[in-house]
């Protein structure tokens, strides 16, 4: 596991490249989250220092945007689409069933750190509703019966 506050060379190079560009904060935060899966307090501190932006401003931005996470997600993050098309086709039932199967609520991580569960708004595959993604892989027309199999695939 990577030391959370240690920024690898490439990340530092990225930040250096963006330093001079106006409006860089969101792009840098994306890059940090890509590296660690979330933005830890230490990372936020480090970004504040490197970009010379107050920490309060950084947290203001992180808390405004749903995409940024401040807690470490599970090894596989399960995103269940709760957009309109998926809602009509039973996306809420999928999340309910996953809550039962994994024993965690929406927004939580399983005890063994393997899975986290998240409801999201439209992943852009509405034609395949209901949709969920695991670690970026998209599953379409999912039925409740398929869920144990999908979980097993990532265990």
């Amino acid at each position, binding site marked *: 596991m990577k030391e959370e506050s240690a920024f690898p060379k490439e990340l530092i190079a990225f930040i250096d490249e963006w330093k001079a560009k*106006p*409006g*860089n*904060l*969101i*792009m840098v*935060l*994306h890059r940090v989250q890509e590296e660690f899966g979330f933005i830890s307090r230490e990372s936020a501190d480090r970004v504040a220092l490197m970009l010379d932006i107050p920490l309060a401003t950084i947290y*203001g*931005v992180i808390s*405004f*945007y*749903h*995409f*940024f996470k401040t807690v470490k997600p599970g090894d596989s993050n399960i995103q269940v689409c*709760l*957009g*309109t*098309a998926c*809602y*009509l*086709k039973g996306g809420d039932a999928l999340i309910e069933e996953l809550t039962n199967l994994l024993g965690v609520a929406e927004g939580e991580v399983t005890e063994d750190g393997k899975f986290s569960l998240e409801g*999201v*708004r*439209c*992943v*852009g*595959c*509405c*034609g*395949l*509703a209901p*949709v969920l993604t695991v670690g*970026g*892989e*998209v*599953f*379409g027309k999912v039925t409740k019966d398929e869920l144990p199999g999908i979980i097993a695939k990532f265990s």
Partner: protein
Amino acid sequence: MAFRNYILVCGGTACESSKSDDIYNALIAECKAQGVADEVQIVKTGCFGFCEQGPIVKILPEDSFYVQVKPEDVPELIAEHIIKGREVERLLYVKEKKKHAKVEDIEFYQKQFRIVLRNCGFIDPENIEEYIARDGYIALEKVLFEMTPDDVINELRTAGLRGRGGAGFPTWMKWNFTRQASGDLKYIVVNADEGDPGAYMDRSVLEGDPHSVLEAMVIAGRTVGSNQGFIYIRAEYPLAIRRLEIAMKQAREMGLLGKNILGSGFDFDIEIRLGAGAFVCGEETALLASIEGRRGMPVPRPPFPAVKGLWGMPTVINNVETWANIPVIIAKGGTWFNKIGTQDSPGTKVFALTGKIRNSGLVEVPMGITLREIIYDIGGGIAHGKEFKAVQTGGPSGGVITIENLDTPIDFGSLTKLGSMMGSGGMIVMDEDDCIVDVTKFYLNFTVDESCGKCSPCRIGGRSLANLLEKITKGNGELADLDQMLEIGQAMKKASLCALGQTAPNPIISSLHYFRDEYLAHIVDKKCPAGKCKSLISYYILPDKCIGCTACARKCPTGAITGERREVHVIDQAACIKCGVCYETCKFGAIEVR
């Protein structure tokens, strides 16, 4: 050497999820194995739109249309179709026992007219040569060497193109404001935030034809006098981002982007900026704040971005679909474009047809087509033989349209008249099983979640509306709640700062207008006619239909069902949590929702 056959495989996100990547790899391997690798060109394209039937494989020149293809089918496709020249019948799209081999025979495509999606599904989006081969960058050449900025604006004016991001503002006017604004620094921005849950046309354009947007941006830069563009795209669209990056790189290498474009002396470059999951950032002033690296809060307009936008500079901001129309308008002329569609709204519109429809997918149709044609002729009607109830357009800002209005020709004006709006093109079909109050509550919860909280009418009003709907679906509603919702809604419409708050009450106003009875059923009779609102329904076993198979009792999570084998079962209402499992399980239709 020319190829004997071309095999096109859908490589959009939707189809990639159904293993189109594996199919692509299998096709390459199999062509090699069967010794025809030199004669066949295999291309991974963008989305064909017919997502319901994906993954789709099309073989040219025969134009055979294979649906729901699996990697295992590949050897047969090559051995039969490519080598022996015989179509693989079992994989052809079948409707009502008629096999449709050719694209033009399929009703899903018959009424469509493709401008925006002209290249989606035909070219490899990762290869600029294929875009160029289909008249790509011809419009840019025209703009650089043959047309003045005034000519371009006049062409757009003749075309009558209106913004496809929702509001339908004439594009030529926006461009003209920015062109006439003083200052050397001006910006071009693409709104690819696509926040409406249930719409995905912008994603398909960017994944299937990224160059159409890049070309249009350079044209706009030249026209209004800007040298820098930004594409603001949702981080949730990784494939679209990757394809844009590839396209930008290839365009730079060919001198179509960067310094001194095609030797004209004009410089223009583009940068990608990522959104981060905030619906309000699709609103243009919030979007610009987000590009500036701040919290995406709207600011009052005027001044409009066209005059005072990004970093205070004049900025043209348009939606992806708007952009994709531009090169075609320049290449074929505004007069040609203006003849398509209606007088109010020339051109086409791409809709994401989803919900309880047989053929879900992306459809591009001329404006002025009726909803009936879209839903029944193209969409194949309601799935599973259910009854049509309503179609929702305009997403969380829109409203419902009912069966009486299915024959209205649709454009910006007519949808607004019906109490809905065009929005970004989400078209969500509901059937008899969908509860209108529940769906309305879904939209209100969405806008409450996504309100930026800057102004109180939206922040507080939205919350109150959502609470009232919750109360009604829980069975505690009172008649006075209906008037109260309308009152709050009017206040929000007048006093909210941006269109998010101003349009948030629309789903309530519209559904109350068309489905007042259904609200009354919830409030007065304490019943949910669609059987969706759990507090208002109960499950019962019909004694004359129950054969005592015990299937439901074994599946009930709370053990609420009792009964001996081969005897009538009963549900203990106190223990039932209304999960509906018994209803889904019973094969004899013995469980009833009341």
